[in-house]
């Protein structure tokens, strides 16, 4: 039915500007055969290389033959259509530049009407992209009529797609056309298909941004109010987000009358999904409405959300506690937090739902910076302690991972006195992720507490982690030792940890013997040549006779690793013979790593 089905016998070269005459003597039919291949995968591959095909055809035939073909054969598997929709968004140069970009509209228009959401969304994305490449005249002549056609399509898919296109053409068309666009958008906001109303509601904020302020006040507000009281909660919840965007556009004095009644109603909506959305967007909302409305309206609304009957809503609100408090007006911040927010927070610490508690635990530490030292010690510390003992590991984990912000406020002494017992307990927590979080916090704690306190209270914990039954913990414990030596120095290492680490070389469990090697790998550099040569090396040599092959090849790896710390004499006379022996080991892997070490250390 289209011109391209006629097999062209003419070579293309003459029509292709700038191509050598030897190149690309492909009749379009051959290329189109590729796009029609029976095998979906091959068809998909061809579509993904559509730009190559267009290049071979040249701009003119791409416009006159390839695009009509693509427009006509739009019925295909969604995966192929998706690839096509994406390709066409980058096709401007291949059809001859902005002057001809409107040629891309017909296939994209078809793609914007298909059923599958991902295809449609991609087509809309590509249309938005190429809209910017249209001249203002082309936009009115070609693009805007397309938007209108989609907006009045029979099936909901085209109307849904239209919603995403209004905002890109509105700023660049004449005022008559602008009025038409506003009218179309209004119609879609009251479409009788909820899918279309949802699409319109989700684009309402974006559309409001490109409208003149007078129309925001006259048109957008009424649409917003209508969508926010839609019979379907899936529409109402989308209006909430639009409300936030609209609030940022309006002058302060209009907010109360134009958006607040609707937003207040949303915060008390009978559907938890809508209230959840309000909670989720609360920080943006707070910024949009400013300090006065925050004090009068948002504080009580936030309290209600924190006390909501649905756990989902409480968790969403709990997530916003820190941000909300941070952004409160400075003059009344502390009072509001102490009298209105903190009582709710205290209740949430013992909430029945673990998601709520865990959401709170991930932000609650941030309050200490806002409230300062005394309030933190008096009011927050007891909450942190309660949460560190929470039955849910995620709650404990979230608290530990954020200890540093409290540390900055009340100082490590105070912190350690109150929290240390809990921390010691968590060091043996049944969940390894909790133990891991504690280990990662250890170097900081050690640095702040000093060597004496550390040796007394924490050293034994650090050593116990080396024999943990979870590898990730042993690994972290090894790394932790290195950081501790960096803080406390080589002498401390020699006296306190090296003997214990080397002692594990005689452990009956080969995993623990390997931990000795991993520790040596980590410690040799920070401990320096003397300790390494005198104390560690003999142990490594001894382990080269281990009966477990994994230990032996780790010996080879360790020697490679600590080689640079040793002097050349030691390498030649002591390390080399051991590696040579390992290089003739029975085990393949031992041989491999020994040979690798020999070559890396240039001992061959």
């Amino acid at each position, binding site marked *: 039915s289209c011109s391209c089905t006629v097999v062209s016998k003419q070579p293309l070269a003459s029509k292709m500007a700038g191509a050598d005459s030897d190149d690309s003597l492909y009749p379009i039919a051959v290329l189109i055969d590729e796009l029609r291949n029976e095998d979906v995968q091959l068809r998909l591959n061809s579509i993904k290389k559509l730009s190559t095909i267009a290049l071979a055809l040249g701009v003119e035939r791409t416009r006159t033959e390839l695009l009509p073909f693509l427009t006509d054969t739009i019925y295909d598997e969604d995966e192929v259509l998706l690839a096509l929709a994406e390709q066409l968004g980058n096709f401007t140069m291949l059809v001859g530049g902005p002057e001809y970009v409107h040629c891309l509209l017909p296939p994209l228009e078809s793609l914007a009407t298909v059923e599958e*959401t991902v295809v449609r969304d991609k087509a809309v994305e590509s249309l938005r992209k190429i809209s910017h490449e249209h001249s203002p005249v082309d936009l009115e002549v070609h693009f805007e009529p397309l938007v209108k056609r989609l907006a009045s399509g029979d099936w909901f898919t085209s109307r849904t797609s239209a919603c995403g296109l209004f905002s890109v053409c509105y700023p660049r068309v004449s005022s008559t056309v602008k009025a038409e666009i506003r009218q179309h958008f209004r119609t879609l906001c009251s479409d009788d298909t909820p899918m279309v109303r949802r699409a319109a509601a989700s684009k309402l904020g974006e559309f409001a941004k490109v409208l003149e302020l007078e129309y925001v006040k006259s048109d957008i507000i009424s649409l917003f109010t209508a969508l926010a009281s839609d019979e379907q909660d899936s529409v109402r919840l989308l209006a909430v987000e639009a409300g936030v965007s609209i609030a940022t556009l309006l002058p302060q004095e209009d907010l109360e009358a134009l958006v607040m009644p609707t937003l207040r109603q949303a915060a008390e909506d009978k559907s*938890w999904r809508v209230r959840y959305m309000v909670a989720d967007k609360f920080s943006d909302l707070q910024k949009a409405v400013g300090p006065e409305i925050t004090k009068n309206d948002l504080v009580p609304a936030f309290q209600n959300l924190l006390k909501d009957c649905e756990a989902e809503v409480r968790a969403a609100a709990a997530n916003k506690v820190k941000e909300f408090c941070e952004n409160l007006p400075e003059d009344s911040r502390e009072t509001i937090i102490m009298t209105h927010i903190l009582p709710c927070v205290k209740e949430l610490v013992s909430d029945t739902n673990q998601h709520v508690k865990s959401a709170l635990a991930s932000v609650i530490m941030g309050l200490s910076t806002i409230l300062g030292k005394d309030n933190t010690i008096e009011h927050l510390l007891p909450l942190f302690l309660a949460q560190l003992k929470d039955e849910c590991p995620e709650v404990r984990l979230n608290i530990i991972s954020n200890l540093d912000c409290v540390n900055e406020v009340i100082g490590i002494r105070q912190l350690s006195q109150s929290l240390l017992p809990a921390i010691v307990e968590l060091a043996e927590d049944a969940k390894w992720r909790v133990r891991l979080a504690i280990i990662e916090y250890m170097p900081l704690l050690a640095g702040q507490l000093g060597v004496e306190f550390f040796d007394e209270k924490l050293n034994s914990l650090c050593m116990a982690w080396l024999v943990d039954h979870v590898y990730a913990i042993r690994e972290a414990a090894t790394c932790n030792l290195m950081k501790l030596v960096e803080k406390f120095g080589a002498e401390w290492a020699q006296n306190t940890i090296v003997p214990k680490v080397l002692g594990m070389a005689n452990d009956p469990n080969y995993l623990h013997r390997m931990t000795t090697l991993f520790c040596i790998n980590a410690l040799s550099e920070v401990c320096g040549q003397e300790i390494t040569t005198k104390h560690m090396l003999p142990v490594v040599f001894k382990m080269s006779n281990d009966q477990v092959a994994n230990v032996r090849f780790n010996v080879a790896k360790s020697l490679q690793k600590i080689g640079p710390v040793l002097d050349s004499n030691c390498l030649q006379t002591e390390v080399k013979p051991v590696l040579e022996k390992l290089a003739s080991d029975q085990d393949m892997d031992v041989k491999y790593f020994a040979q690798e070490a020999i070559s890396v250390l240039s001992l061959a």
Partner: protein
Amino acid sequence: SALAMSSAATTPPSVDKVDGFSRKSVRKAKQKRSQSSSQFRSQGKPIELTPLPLLKDVSAQEQPELFLKKLQQCCAVFDFMDTLSDLKMKEYKRSTLNELVDYVTVSRGYLTEQAYPEVVKMVSYNIFRTLPPSDSNEFDPEEDEPTLEASWPHLQLVYEFFIRFLESQEFQPSIAKKYIDQKFVLQLLELFDSEDPRERDYLKTVLHRIYGKFLGLRAFIRKQINNIFLRFVYETEHFNGVAELLEILGSIINGFALPLKAEHKQFLVKVLIPLHTVRSLSLFHAQLAYCIVQFLEKDPALTEPVIRGLLKFWPKTCSQKEVMFLGELEEILDVIEPTQFVKIQEPLFKQISKCVSSPHFQVAERALYYWNNEYIMSLIEENSNVILPIMFTSLYRISKEHWNPAIVALVYNVLKAFMEMNSTLFDELTSTYKSDRQREKKKEKEREELWKRLEDLELKRSLQSDGIIPT
């Protein structure tokens, strides 16, 4: 969820070593979970209802008045998550509801015009609520126990009452339609998302009765079900009541007048067919296939678009779904007219040929079972000239290569059947098998060369435009 929480709190801190590979059903302690409806209203205030006399204890003239009063009392909704609150009043409401159920079943002359709005109000107050969030995001209806509605002791009786009311001989749709309107139906449809299968079952009966009695609401109900399905397919993939809604539709389709309206055909092609793409297809496939076959029995001309639709959405990776598709296709073939069969046989058997050579033996087996179906066999025989060349390559290859001996045996039978059907063509295909494969390989090579040249061209062009080589 509160029950689950409290029982978790009483178990000692777990030292279990979960290996991460055990099935979900094993890992999760089997516990009956229940949930309350998400009501946004002030809680904690005790509800006081003044006990009323029994309906049978008052005179016939007083009964209508007392009936209204009881309906009004039953508008009070209790918090069932709090198992200790309002015990006495909960029991009172339960017995009142029971009495009302009996009353509408046996009494005559009770249904005054004033009763209609009160009945609808009582039902609305009790059943219409925002459904609570699902207990876990990864709720898997096939593995997990559904969360049960905590207020079921009352809710069940309300549904029971409502159904008896709708089925009552005195019930007059012309009066009721003022109260059972579009808004009512919309809220009713939203409840089909309830996780509690007992509730969905009652809803099915209620909606069916409303569809039967309120002609003015029929088109609206169909349209809203459309919207629910479209949202389910294209937006959320989550809706608990799809099977129940399809079951209702099955009987609705059965009653469609001929010729079918465009609206109904659109529903088939644009809604029912895309429903096959959803991940949880197994939960409603039987009902869906029933609807499809109902349509084809009404209007055989729809066979081609239906089969083409199924082929378009044929599962790419999920073998379990592929087996379901093959089952549905067989149901369709069972009722297909020979003239329709000829129209779609080529694309259809190209797909069947792929299924037969699936490395998943259940898929291959399901497809090969078609050859045990006498009607399908007769269709294949009539059209062996077309079908045999499509199937031959796969069958020939599997007979030599498939890992599963049962499949190889089945394929031998199929090859034998073809040989008996059309021995001339069979011999011809056998003798040209090798040369055909070579021709295919050659074509494949030509393709590769074409693309290589195209890519060289592109590379050269980009070098030119970067000014690296002169134009």
